[in-house]
C-alpha cells in the first residue's frame, strides 16, 4: 500500500460513481466533475466553458465526454475541446484502494 501525496484531496469512494458515468463534487470550493470512464478515472472542471452545461451529466466514452446541453466534446485526459470553443481544466486523479483522490493544486490545460 502506498501513501497519498499531501496535495491530493479525498473526493469519494469508487462505488459512488457508476461505471461509465460522471458525478460532480465540490472540492475546496470548486465544482469538479469526476468520471469513471472506459479509459480510466478523470477529473475536469464541472461546467462546460460554452454555456455552463453540467459535464458530469454527459455521455462518456473511453476518454471523452459530451456536454448534455449542446454536444460540445472534451478530451478527458487533456481537457482539449474536440469540437469547438474553449478547453476545460483537468486534474490528476489517484485511486487508492476504493478511494478516489483528486490533486486540486495543479489544474492542467491542454497545450495551445
Amino acid at each position: 500500500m502506498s501513501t497519498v501525496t499531501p496535495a491530493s484531496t479525498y473526493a469519494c469512494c469508487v462505488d459512488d460513481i457508476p461505471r461509465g458515468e460522471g458525478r460532480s463534487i465540490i472540492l475546496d470550493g470548486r465544482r469538479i466533475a469526476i468520471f469513471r470512464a472506459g479509459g480510466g478515472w478523470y477529473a475536469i472542471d464541472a461546467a462546460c466553458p460554452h454555456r455552463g452545461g453540467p459535464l458530469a451529466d454527459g455521455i462518456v466514452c473511453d476518454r471523452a465526454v459530451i456536454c448534455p446541453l449542446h454536444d460540445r466534446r472534451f478530451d478527458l485526459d487533456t481537457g482539449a475541446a474536440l469540437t469547438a470553443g474553449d478547453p476545460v481544466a483537468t486534474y490528476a486523479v489517484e485511486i487508492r484502494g476504493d478511494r478516489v483522490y483528486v490533486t486540486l493544486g495543479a489544474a492542467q490545460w491542454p497545450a495551445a
Partner: protein
Amino acid sequence: MTPGIVIVGGGIAGQAVCEALRERDRDVAITLVCGERAAPYDRVRLSEILVSGENSETLRLRPTEWYADNGVDLLVGRSVTWIDADRRVLGIDDTDELAFAQLVIATGSQPLMPPIPGIGLDGVHPFRDPADCDAIRLAAASGIERAAVVGGGLLGLEAARGIAAQGCAVTVVHLLDRLMERQLDAGASSLLAPALAGLDIDVEFDRNTQQIIGPDRAHGLRFTDGSELLADLVVVSIGIRPESELARTMGIVCDRGIIVDDAMRTSLPGVLAVGECAQHRGIVYGLVAPIYDQARVAAQTLISGAGAGGVSADAAALYLGSVPSAKLKVAGIDLVCAGESGGDMEAVVTDAATNMYRKLSVRNGRVIGTVLLGDTRGSEALVAAVRSGEPIDDPLQALADASLSGPADLPDTAQICDCNGVCKGALIAAVIDGGCATPREVMAVTRAGTGCGSCRPAVKEIVAAATGGLNDEPAYLCPCRKQTRKSLAEQIRADGLRSVSDVANACATGRACGACKPALAYLVSEVCANQHREERDARFINDRVHANIQHDGTFSVVPRMYGGVTTPDELRRIADVADKYEVPMVKVTGGQRLDLLGVKKQDLPAIWRELGMPSGHAYAKAVRTVKTCVGTDFCRFGLGDSVGLGIEMEKLWEGLHTPHKVKSGVSGCPRNCAEATVKDIGCVAVEGGWQVRAGGAAGGNVREADILATVETRGDALRVATTFLQFYRENADYKERTYDFIPRVGLEKVREIVLGEESGAALRERLRIAKAATQDPWLERDEPYHPRQFDDLDEPDPEPALVGPPAGAEL
C-alpha cells in the same frame, strides 16, 4: 506597438471589415471600438428575437475568444469622442488616446425620428438595438389594446410581426399607398397587405402622422387628415440617418452620409468609411448584403496601402455598388426581392386568391429585378440572374423554369449567403476539399447561414446534394466505425449481443467519440424486444434520470395524463408537489400535459412518489403524448370517440422507445382540433370511419401527414396506427422523425407493409412482445439502478476510516 488599423463602430460593418482584414493579413494590429454595450451582434436578426424573446446574446457574431484568438483588440461600450487626423490619434471616452495608421469609420446609422409633437413620450420606441427590442416586447406583452408601427418598410413590418406574436393587436400606418415601396411594385404590395392581415397585422395607407397623442405617455397617433388611431405602444420605423457626425468634425466631405470613392476611401487620406454611414455614388445602403461587399473592398484598400493615398487603388478591388436584395423575415410570408421592381419588359405570374406574385423585370434584354411573394421557389437562381444581369429572351419561361429548380441546380458562382457573400462553389469545396459532412460543419467553415439565417434551407439542400453525390454514403449509426443501423442490427441478431458494451466489444462502436451510444442503446433494446441488458452509461442524461435536462442543469417533470384527460385529484397532487418543492414554473404543454420546470435532480424520486402518476416520457425518444379533442364525449360536432381512441393508443404504446420522439393526436372530426394532421401519428374521425395518418410535422417545417388508410372502426384505426408505430421502430434511423422516414422509404412501400395482412400481424406481434417488457421508469424512485442515480456528490462525505493498518503506519 506600431499604430495599426482602428475601426470605429462595432456593428455588422465594423465586424465585417475586421474579418475581411484578418483573412488577408494575420499580423496587422486591429482595434475595434464598439459604442454599444454589446460586442458585435447580428442586428439583422433582431426581429427574430422580438418574436421569440430569446436572449440577444444569441445574436453575437463571434464569441469573445475569437477576438483574442485573432489578435483583435475589442473595446466594448467605449466611444470615440474626437479624432485628430493630423496627429493620427483619437480619443476614447475623453480619457484615453489611441494612435492609428489607418482608420475605418463604421458608425452605422441612427433611426430617423420625425420632429413631431409627442415623439419623446414614454411608449414611443425606435427599433434599432436589443434595448429597443426588449422594451417593445415587454410593452406588447403587457396587455395593451393596440400598438402602432409608423412606417411600412421592411423593418417596420418585421417589428409589427414581432408585436403581433406577443398577442397584441397592431396597425402599421404608412405614408404612401404601398408597402415596402423601395423594393416592391404596386402589384406585389397590394397582395402583401392581405397576407399581413392573415397574421393579424392591420395596415393603413396614406397616413401622415402629425402628432403622437399624450400627454403623460403615448396613447395614439393623430394624422394630418384629423383622424386618430389609439395605441399605447408606438414603434417608429421610417428610415435611417447615416451617423456621420464624427466624420464631419474631422472635416471629411459628407452629404447624406460620408462620401466614399470606389475604394471606400473618404476625402481624408488614410480614413475609410463602410456600411450605413457611407454614401457611395449617391447611394446610402440600408441593407446588409452591400455591407459585406464594401467591407471586402475596404480591407483590400487598407492592406494594399492604397488607403493612405500612396498607391493607386487596385482596379480589382473596387466597389462598384450593389444590387439591393432583401428577404422579409416574417414567418408566414415568403418574400424575396432583388434589383429594380420594374423594367421595359416584365413577366408576372400572380394569384390573388393565394397572395402569390412572381415577377421578373428586364431592361435591354438583361434581367434587372425580381419580386417573389408567396412562392419563392427558385429565388436563388433568379436573384443570381439579377446580380449578373443575365441576358434573357423569355422572362416568363425563366420564371417557370426557376420554380422547378432547387439550389442544387444552381451554378457554382451563384451567391447563396448574401450576408457573408458565400457562393455555392465554396459550399461544395467545403464538402469535397474541406471534408465537412454536415450543413453545420459547412456553415462553421464558410460562415454561410450565420448572418440573417434565411439561406440555411438552401445551404442544407446543397450540402445534402454534395455529400450524397460524393459517394452515396449511407447514414451511419456510428460514423467513427462506419457502421450502419442495418449492419449492426444483423450483428446483434447473429451473435446474440444483448448490451451496448457487447456491441462495443464486438465491433468497437461507441468507444472513440461516444456520440452514438444512445443510438446503440436504442438499437439493442429494439432488436432484443426490450429483453436487452440495460446500461445506463450509454443513455443520454434524460434517460438516466427520466426527466428532461434544462439549460441550467435542472430538469422538467411531465407526468402522464392519458389523452390529456386529468382529474381534480391529480391536479391537487401536482399543485401540492409544485408548492412543496418550490417548482419555479408550471406550464401547460402543447401536448396537453402539465410540465413542472426547474426541478432539482435529487428531488426527482420524491416528486414522482408524491405525484403517484406514471412517467409521461417527455424527455425520451419514445411515444410521447396523444393529444385529443373532446370528440363525442361533449362536442356537438364530434363524429368519433377521439378521447377514447387517444387513451387506448397511449396505454397500448406507453413506455415504448422509438428512433425519435413520436407525437400523436386524435381528432373527433375533420375540424381537427387536436391537430392530428401534423402529428407523427394522427387519427381523424370522418363520416363513416377514421382516417389514419403518419409523418406530419409542425416544427421548423410544417408537413401534412400522409394518409395511411381510411378505415371503418376505431379498432381498425388503432390497429393500423399501432402497426405503423412498430414499422417505424424497426426501420427508421436513430433521430429520424416519421416525417423524414416516410418520404425516404416511400409512402407506397410503407402502406404495403403496414396494411399487408401477414406483415402487419407480424409487426403487431413484435410490438406486443416489446411492450410486455416495459415498465414505468419512474418506479426507479424505489429501485434505483445505482444508489447515486439521482445524486451528485456535492460536498465530499467524511473520508471513511481505513480498514487495516492505521493511517500513516507505513510512513
